[in-house]
């Protein structure tokens, strides 16, 4: 049998080739390069699935150094490019290539059929985006990950600003770029800190920085690391973890750097689906998963992650409640759902986080593509109050969108229920054993469940139910098969993807049926997964030298039922408020609270103020000091020289006799000095 790992690099390289091809020849290709993108992502998907199959049937983790980027001569640091394909990476590769494939397909309907111009640019960026994300996923060290992380940011900039002739998109693209770059700045410092501390940035292998760090802290092993600023070892590990977390918070749109994401809705809708479901935003959370063994060492970092995540989940959900544009609601729900993943990671629920990432990728891509179909049908009007009644006019979109919404709201038995339950359960289990911060996070998360169901079904009711409120909604534009096919695929997956880890009912089906857990623990592999397995992460989490979490064994049925009840409360609320043929805008009753929520808690204004009110005056003051202080000294030196030079040059009279006199006087003077010094007199 052919070993799939011989050409596993191609998973990312084929989309790269497609990028080059489309960039050069896109205008002459059929469908302006869409075909090449579809073929490339389809190929990546096939290889990824093959890899998954191989790992599931007892393959081995693939870890290979490919290319030495900067060679260190014994003392220095070696910078390498390499591949690491473990169960986590394989799963993520599959998700990314699947979503990218479907998004390419959907784009045929969304972009080509609508007669958009600039399609070569669109498909080239899309391919580059896919390449960057796939390469990021199988990076085997932090530096390589950082590079592709940045490339992902660049591509999102290009795609969000795709319609650069309008006013909104360029500014949104710039904002996305700058806000994420602000976080990435910390990430870069973190990468340097990791290299400086451990001398390597590898994720896996015998001498990965994660293992080194574990050995340093573990009393039964010995390890070495450099610490800086006189901090203790654990404190320094926390500092590094938080620095890297800066990049994660920026990319995964967590509070307070989430502001770029709702603005990013200015991009084409398929791009939004790609950004939100599989690339870009997922990159941040994936990075934490990739180096989870490292985060597990620092209880402080974990608490901060859990708190940020829980708070963001709740905070973003409140804003989603009042938005009127379809995509805005989805944008805030993305922020909120990534908050759940962060909550799970902070709360020690590695499996839960991966699970939620997987299901979220499916149902959020579905919802965005569904929204895209609705937007096409509505001739690019996104206001939900102009819709209504689309249910009977676009049944495929309605049913798939409904499945996605049920999954998002966490209704049994859709995918989102299982994963969200897993997130909350694992957080609760660790929180009940004396971790009050985790309980706070759990509280936020549970409250957000109600809000999630409420805003999701507000969206569904306003968009699809009731009577049509405008003429466009009366007679929407039909959508083609190329838009329906991705919707159906994702709709089916949203309904059934939960089966990979039915955690809530594990008492009935047994531990063995939790496939994702087994998968991440490396039980399907031939060899040992070692330090990358979920089991090892839990071992570290529960060690006293690391996070020191303890597990309170509670039946998963209780919290599962609670999550379901909370979701049903939200759903019931939405039914009660927005049912009927002419729903009233209930949210306006919130008055000033609504204004606050509509304006996103004035965080955008606050950030603008930070830039114009604080940073700009500071920069101006610094500029003034530079101009007058520093430059003044430099210029002063110059003008003193100029002035004295102007005076002294008068002695160059041009008369030879004067020069001779000066020479003679100089000689006499010299003689006199020698005489006086030598004591001749």
């Amino acid at each position: 049998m052919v070993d799939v790992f011989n050409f596993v690099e191609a998973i990312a390289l084929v989309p790269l080739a497609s990028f080059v091809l489309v960039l050069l020849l896109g205008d002459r290709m059929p469908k302006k390069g869409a075909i090449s993108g579809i073929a490339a992502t389809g190929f990546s998907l096939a290889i990824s699935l093959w890899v998954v199959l191989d790992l599931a049937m007892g393959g081995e983790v693939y870890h290979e150094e490919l290319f030495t980027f900067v060679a260190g001569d014994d003392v220095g640091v070696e910078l390498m490019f390499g591949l690491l394909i473990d169960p986590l990476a394989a799963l993520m590769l599959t998700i990314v290539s699947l979503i990218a494939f479907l998004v390419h397909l959907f784009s045929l309907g969304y972009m080509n059929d609508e007669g958009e111009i600039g399609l070569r640019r669109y498909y080239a960026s899309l391919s580059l985006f896919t390449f960057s994300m796939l390469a990021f996923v199988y990076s085997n060290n932090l530096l390589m990950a950082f590079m592709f992380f940045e490339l992902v940011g660049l591509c999102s900039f290009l795609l969000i600003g795709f319609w650069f002739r309008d006013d909104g998109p360029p500014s949104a693209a710039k904002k996305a770029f700058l806000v994420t770059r602000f976080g990435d700045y910390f990430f870069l410092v973190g990468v340097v800190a990791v290299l400086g501390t451990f001398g390597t940035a590898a994720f896996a292998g015998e001498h990965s920085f994660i293992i080194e760090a574990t050995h340093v802290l573990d009393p039964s092993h010995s390890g070495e690391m450099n610490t800086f600023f006189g901090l203790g070892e654990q404190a320094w590990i926390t500092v590094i973890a938080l620095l890297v977390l800066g990049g994660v918070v920026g990319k995964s749109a967590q509070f307070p750097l989430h502001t770029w994401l709702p603005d990013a809705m200015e991009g084409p809708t398929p791009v939004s689906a790609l950004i939100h479901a599989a690339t870009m935003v997922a990159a941040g959370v994936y990075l934490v998963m990739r180096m989870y063994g490292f985060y597990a060492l620092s209880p402080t970092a974990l608490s901060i992650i859990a708190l940020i995540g829980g708070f963001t989940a709740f905070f973003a959900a409140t804003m989603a409640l009042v938005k009127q544009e379809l995509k805005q609601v989805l944008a805030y729900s993305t922020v909120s759902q990534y908050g759940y993943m962060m909550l799970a990671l902070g709360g020690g629920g590695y499996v839960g986080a991966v699970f939620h990432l997987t299901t979220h990728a499916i149902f959020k891509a579905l919802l965005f593509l569904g929204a895209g179909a609705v937007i096409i049908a509505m001739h690019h009007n996104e206001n939900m109050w102009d819709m209504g009644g689309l249910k009977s006019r676009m049944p495929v979109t309605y049913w798939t969108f409904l499945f996605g919404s049920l999954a998002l709201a966490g209704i049994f038995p859709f995918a989102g229920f299982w994963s969200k339950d897993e997130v909350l359960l694992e957080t609760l289990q660790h929180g009940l054993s004396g971790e009050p911060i985790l309980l706070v996070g759990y509280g936020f998360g549970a409250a957000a469940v109600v809000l999630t169901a409420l805003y999701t079904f507000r969206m569904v009711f306003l968009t699809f139910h009731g009577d049509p409120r405008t003429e466009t909604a009366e007679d929407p534009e039909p959508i083609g098969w190329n838009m329906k096919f991705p919707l159906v695929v994702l709709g089916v997956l949203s309904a059934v993807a939960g089966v990979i880890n039915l955690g809530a009912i594990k008492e009935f089906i047994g531990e063995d049926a939790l496939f994702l857990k087994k998968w991440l623990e490396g039980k399907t592999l031939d060899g040992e997964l070692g330090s990358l397995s979920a089991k090892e992460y839990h071992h570290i989490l529960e060690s006293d030298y690391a996070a020191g979490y303890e597990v309170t064994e509670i039946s998963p049925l209780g919290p599962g039922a609670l999550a379901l009840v909370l979701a049903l409360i939200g759903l019931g609320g939405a039914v009660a408020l927005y049912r009927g043929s002419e729903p009233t805008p209930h949210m306006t009753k919130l008055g000033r609270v609504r204004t606050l929520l509509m304006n996103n808690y004035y965080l955008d204004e606050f950030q603008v103020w930070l830039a114009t009110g604080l940073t700009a005056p500071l920069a101006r003051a610094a500029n003034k000091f530079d101009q007058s202080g520093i430059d003044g000294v430099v210029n002063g030196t110059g003008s003193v020289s100029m002035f004295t030079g102007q005076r002294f040059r008068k002695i160059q009279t041009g008369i030879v006799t004067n020069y001779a006199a000066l020479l003679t006087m100089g000689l006499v003077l010299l003689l006199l000095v020698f005489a006086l010094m030598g004591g001749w007199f």
Partner: protein
Amino acid sequence: MTVPLELYLVLSASVFCAGLFGILVRQSALHFLMAVELMLNAANINLVAFSLEHGNLTGQVFALFGLALAAAEVAIGIGIILVLNRNFDNIDVTDAVTMRW
């Protein structure tokens, strides 16, 4: 009869001073050239005098070099004076002041 060294040195010094005086007060470039010759020869007198005093020929050899140098200097100097005359129609050194600040 030997002449004491001091007398040579006094002679040399007075010739040197005469040369220096010439350089400082004369205006004609030819006088300049002559004054410079005087100063060079004052140095030569010193060299020869010390050579005689110490019974060492090195000084005299150096004096020969000095003479050769003086000859070369005159050749160049006369050339400069000719150019000076061509450009300024006289050889007054205080007139040729275009090379100043």
